């Protein structure tokens, strides 16, 4: 096997089919980048899920005077006795790990500290904020049980599971991921066809050479290898571009919304995604080349 002979053949083939080669490179790059972005979102979603699951707590809001919520209507503010009774009850529950009390002042501080609209901030007074118990659960998956048992207790207004606040964001991420994966799938399909076509053109362009190779007794692998290598190299270049796209995406997109995500997408998982997408890209190119060669290059 003479490596430099094969490589010169490959180089000639790639140059002759320059436009097709570029098309393959671009398709593979975009397809693999989208696949990678899908995988990145996926890993982000799973690490976020565990992050949020750990942070889950229930906010048990308490009735105050003239509270608009149905649960408190006609009852007036929660009394001091009711408050103590509720706290004792919460602390006695086996599912509850810890109970903290949040005063109106604390709630106001938290609310105004969130970068809230200044007009809204001016219109809100400390007395508008509800008091609440912050309940940390031993098992976040059993939150509904706790919520159900507390519903209707004297002085209890709304009970909010903090996990529910994050759900729309999770839904959005999942939609984004599915879309990226769907487009990636279409791109991979297009890349397969393009590679097939490139190899076919290449085989046609070089039919004189391959005819002579057959005649003088070159082995099948010697005849086919340059074509498969063409596909592979185009796939590999596409893979490198997709890696660059993925790195840019991490820095520009994932790192900039890190504030929301609270979980950083590490370089390790990016390296894993890049390795995976490149392998898939190259594998597809090799397969497409082989399948086309079997049809168009009689050996």
């Amino acid at each position, binding site marked *: *096997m*003479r490596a430099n*002979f094969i490589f010169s053949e490959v180089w000639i083939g790639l140059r002759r089919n320059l436009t097709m080669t570029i098309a393959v490179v671009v398709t593979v790059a975009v397809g693999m980048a989208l696949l990678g972005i899908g995988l990145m979102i996926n890993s982000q979603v799973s690490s976020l899920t565990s992050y949020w699951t750990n942070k889950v707590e229930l906010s048990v809001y308490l009735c105050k005077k003239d509270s608009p919520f149905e649960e408190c209507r006609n009852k007036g503010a929660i009394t001091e006795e009711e408050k103590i009774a509720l706290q004792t009850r919460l602390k006695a529950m086996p599912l509850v790990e810890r109970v903290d009390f949040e005063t109106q002042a604390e709630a106001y501080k938290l609310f105004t500290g969130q970068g809230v609209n200044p007009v809204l901030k001016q219109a809100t007074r400390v007395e508008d904020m509800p008091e609440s118990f912050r309940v940390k659960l031993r098992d976040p998956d059993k939150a509904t049980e706790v919520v159900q048992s507390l519903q209707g207790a004297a002085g209890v207004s709304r009970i909010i599971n903090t996990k529910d606040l994050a759900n729309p964001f999770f839904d959005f991420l999942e939609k984004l991921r599915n879309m990226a994966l769907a487009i990636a799938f279409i791109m991979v399909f297009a890349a397969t066809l393009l590679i097939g076509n490139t190899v076919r053109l290449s085989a046609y362009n070089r039919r*004189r*050479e391959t*005819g*002579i*190779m*057959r*005649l*003088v*007794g*070159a*082995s*099948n692998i*010697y*005849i086919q290898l340059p074509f498969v290598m063409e596909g592979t190299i185009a796939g590999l270049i596409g893979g490198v571009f997709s890696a660059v796209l993925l790195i840019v995406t991490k820095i520009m997109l994932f790192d900039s919304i890190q504030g929301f995500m609270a979980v950083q997408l590490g370089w390790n998982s990016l390296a894993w995604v890049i390795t995976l997408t490149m392998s898939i890209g190259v594998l597809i190119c090799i397969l497409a080349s082989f399948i086309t060669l079997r049809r168009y290059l009689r050996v």
Partner: protein
Amino acid sequence: MIHFDNVSKVYANQNRPALDHVSVDVDKGEFVFLVGPSGSGKSTFLRLVLKEERPNSGAIHVAGKDLAKLSNFKVPHLRRRIGCVFQDFRLLPNKNVYENVAFALEVIGKPRRFIRKVVPEVIELVGLEGKAHRMPDELSGGEQQRVAMARAFVNRPMILLADEPTGNIDPATSIGIMKVLDRINRTGTTVLMATHDAAIVDSMRKRVVELEDGKIVRDQSRGVYGQAY
């Protein structure tokens, strides 16, 4: 060297067989003309020797191998022992004389040192010394055919198949081509040449096998082309 035993070949979608129960024996070192009109089965005969086609019936042995039992994987090795020359030369237009000849060795993985040694030798053998760096389009038809012969012979095949090698060449130049074929034959290579060229066959006085409608109608040592044509 080449042994055909009751070989028949019918191409798909054709009623008439291209070869019809043909039996021939060609010994090592022989020079055989395969003559007959177009469509008589000469090219089919050569393609069967190369295992480019399979016979519908009968057995073919080439260089001691039963082609029916030769796996596809081993066909390239058979072809390395057979050189081929065609009417249309089949040179690579973007490679010069040396590169065209060397190509045949490169693609079967011969080491570069070996190639550098044998290619100039064979270029000299076919009478193209000093023209190694010419491109095919700078050569006459006869010279191009010599390049093709050098390529066919460079790996020292046991058999040389020539399919109308003088078909595109004027009679005067053809004599030179035949001299090269004769020289190759004298090295011990079996030469099987399909041709229409009566003058050449008559002048060489070699064995003549005549095909007509896929049947052998004459097999004559030291023969001529025949009165019928």
